[in-house]
């Protein structure tokens, strides 16, 4: 019965959605109503052991936090879930809310009347959910110190529960814990930042998550640890973490995106550009490109562009014209232009002018390494355009100080394969280019095709693996119906047999007469 009522409420919610058209729906419901519906969803999740309901409840956090009456609704929700005021759990949560909310005893009397519509059981998941909401509230009011202590408390309690239905909630709790610590003074990248004290906690959480097979928390905590290490530039430690742990394959898409992004950053700093490029490309492909999460897409694309430049490829111009990316990538566009032409002076000017922005994005040190790329591209342009060019002219074009430097630079460029089929004439001091190399005659096109085909096939495999078949419930109902039918058939068979026997007896009896 309770289940049926829950289904009705959730159906009611979906009907409202249909009426008002999509994501505008929860605006019709009051904040308190949303919280109570979420309690119902969480109950359902615990009963049916299906994480999708918890995820739906968590998704409403984004709409909840923008409401003005969030604190009041939260207080009402706490009172609804834990009616006894002396309850320890309730007290822990209420401590974090402002005084005004706690005093609202009278206002909630009305909502109490509607309480029997939804059965709210005092289960730990509801408490955890309210804990996460309190964290969100504290974060939005920028009370970082209080938030940090509350989160530590919350997280240690959550760790003591070993319940799989709590996993999505605990991964959110860790996320907010990390966010609070990042905002405490002294801010990272100072070596005294409190994020360093957070590391043992996160590592312990990772251990327990792996032992309990809790892939949500495992993914979330790994990502948070990497973020932690990168913020203080402890790249070797981050690298070791990646080498020693396995990222769970069943993690949610957004965690996978973040993981790939941080991994790409680490590899880029370690000069493993090809690996960094594949990671960052996967991150950009998987990330959502619209809505509130577009910031991640912008950030990942910035990294991707810098890594592509470092590898010697020029990113496509079309990327810079996407409407969501246009403003964010403006300084990078100028950078790409300077590198493409081989203009060292323009490059230096661009870097100096946008230093602040690049530092904020964390790409500044990588961009400094681009200096040699500019020179290489410059040399390549010159070798393509001239069949014979004197070293003195190269010297002026590339803004290099001396002819000898130009000679060494071109020799190195030839050795590195930047300008194949060239040679230097030392006596006359010229660079000669022998053209006539047919690209299609070599294996390059087939290799490029092979890479692309491999990537697409991989994507298809992933899609197939990610497909889920809906209608679990229907299937269960179907199975039950089948079983019912079988039983009926058996019964009918038995009855018929019994009749036959009777008939036989009867008939036998008659015969006997």
């Amino acid at each position: 019965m309770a289940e049926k009522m829950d289904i009705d409420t959730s159906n009611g919610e979906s009907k409202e959605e249909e009426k008002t058209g999509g994501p505008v729906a929860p605006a019709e419901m009051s904040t308190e109503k949303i919280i109570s519906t979420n309690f119902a969803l969480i109950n359902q999740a615990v009963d049916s052991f299906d994480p999708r309901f918890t995820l739906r409840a968590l998704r409403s956090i984004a709409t909840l936090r923008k409401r003005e009456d969030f604190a009041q609704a939260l207080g009402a929700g706490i009172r609804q879930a834990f009616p006894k005021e002396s309850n320890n759990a309730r007290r822990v949560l209420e401590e974090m809310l402002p005084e005004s909310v706690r005093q609202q005893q009278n206002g909630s009397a009305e909502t109490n009347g509607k309480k029997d519509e939804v059965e709210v059981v005092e289960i730990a998941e509801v408490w955890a959910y309210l804990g996460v909401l309190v964290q969100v509230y504290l974060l939005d009011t920028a009370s970082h110190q209080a938030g940090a202590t509350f989160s530590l408390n919350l997280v240690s309690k959550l760790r003591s529960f070993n319940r799989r239905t709590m996993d999505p909630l605990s991964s959110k709790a860790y996320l907010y814990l990390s966010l609070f610590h990042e905002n405490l003074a002294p801010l990272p990248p100072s070596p005294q930042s409190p994020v360093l004290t957070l590391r043992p906690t996160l590592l312990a959480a990772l251990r327990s998550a792996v032992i309990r097979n809790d892939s949500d928390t495992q993914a979330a905590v790994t990502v948070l640890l990497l973020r932690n290490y990168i913020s203080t530039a402890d790249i070797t430690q981050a690298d070791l973490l990646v080498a020693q742990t396995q990222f769970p394959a069943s993690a949610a898409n957004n965690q996978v995106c973040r993981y790939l992004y941080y991994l790409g950053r680490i590899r880029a700093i370690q000069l493993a550009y090809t690996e960094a490029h594949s990671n960052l490309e996967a991150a950009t492909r998987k990330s959502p490109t619209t809505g509130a999460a577009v910031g991640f897409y912008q950030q990942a694309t910035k990294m991707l562009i810098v890594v592509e430049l470092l590898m010697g490829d020029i990113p496509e111009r079309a990327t810079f014209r996407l409407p969501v990316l246009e403003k964010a990538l403006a300084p990078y566009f100028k950078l790409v232009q300077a590198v493409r032409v081989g203009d060292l002076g323009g490059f230096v000017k661009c870097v100096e002018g946008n230093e602040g922005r690049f530092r904020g994005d964390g790409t500044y040190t990588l961009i400094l390494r681009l200096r040699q790329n500019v020179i290489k591209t410059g040399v390549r342009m010159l070798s393509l355009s001239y069949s014979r060019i004197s070293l003195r002219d190269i010297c002026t074009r590339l803004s290099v100080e001396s002819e000898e430097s130009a000679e060494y630079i071109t020799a190195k460029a030839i050795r590195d394969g930047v300008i194949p089929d060239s040679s230097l004439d030392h006596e006359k001091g010229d660079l000669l280019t022998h053209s006539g190399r047919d690209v299609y005659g070599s294996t390059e096109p087939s290799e490029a095709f092979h890479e692309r085909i491999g990537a697409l096939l991989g994507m298809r495999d992933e899609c197939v693996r990610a497909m889920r078949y809906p209608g679990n419930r229907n299937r269960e109902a179907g199975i039950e119906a089948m079983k019912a039918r079988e039983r009926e058939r058996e019964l009918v068979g038995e009855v018929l047999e019994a009749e036959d026997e009777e008939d036989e007896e009867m008939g036998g009896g008659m015969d006997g007469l």
Partner: protein
Amino acid sequence: MAEHELYHIIHQLEKPHNLQQAPQLLSKAKLGLLHIQALVPSSDTTPQHLHIATSVLEHGALLSIRLKDTEAFTRYYQQLQPFYSLPHDRWQRDKRPSNQSKVTGLYLLLLLSVGDYAGFHTVLEGLEMSSGKKQIEKDELIQYPVRLEQALMEGSYDKVWGETKGERVPSEEFAVFSEVLINTIRSEIASCSERAYPSLPISNAKNLLFLDSEGAVIQFAQARGWVAKEGRIYFPQQEAEALAAEKDVMSSSNTVIENTLGYARKLETIV
């Protein structure tokens, strides 16, 4: 008192001609540090102890450079790291250890000479994060390896040559690395020249390779397998390359077959 002993040892270490006895003195000093529990900084180590500990370890680092013991130097560097990451208020007199940039600069140079560019950039990132760019730019001892790395990556080896010669070197410990660096760039230039020039007259080769005499050039050429005839050096590598390119076609047909079979297999699953 252990501290008196340590001061005595430090004083002895600072005298320049004690190079041979240095390792023993250093072991004694480290034992002394352990006695006053200052080898690893903790929250209750006094600033005085911190100063003593850092000067002992720094002397150890610099002396091991002079003795060309790179392993010991790396060890000292790692031991100094926790001291360097302490905040300013732990050092009472507002005087941070004076040799910090020197030791860091030397470590960067060591990474460069070994060719560990990934490690070099990682350390540099860490420095930028903790001290900020302005401070690093003003610090000549750190700018030296940074400039060298830039020049090496670009390929302007004459700049590297100029930096390692004489006056531009910030201090004598850096000079120890100059030899190693010059050998590195010599082999780099040699491999570049093999690909870039069809042939070179010996006098030009002498200038390019920063060698002192023509005899040295011929020796070097023979060591690398070049042919020296009539006052010119011929580089034989191009022919080997051409052969390799021809073989390429045969081996590539193997790859093409493998690839195509793979595609066929995968395509069958997509129906």
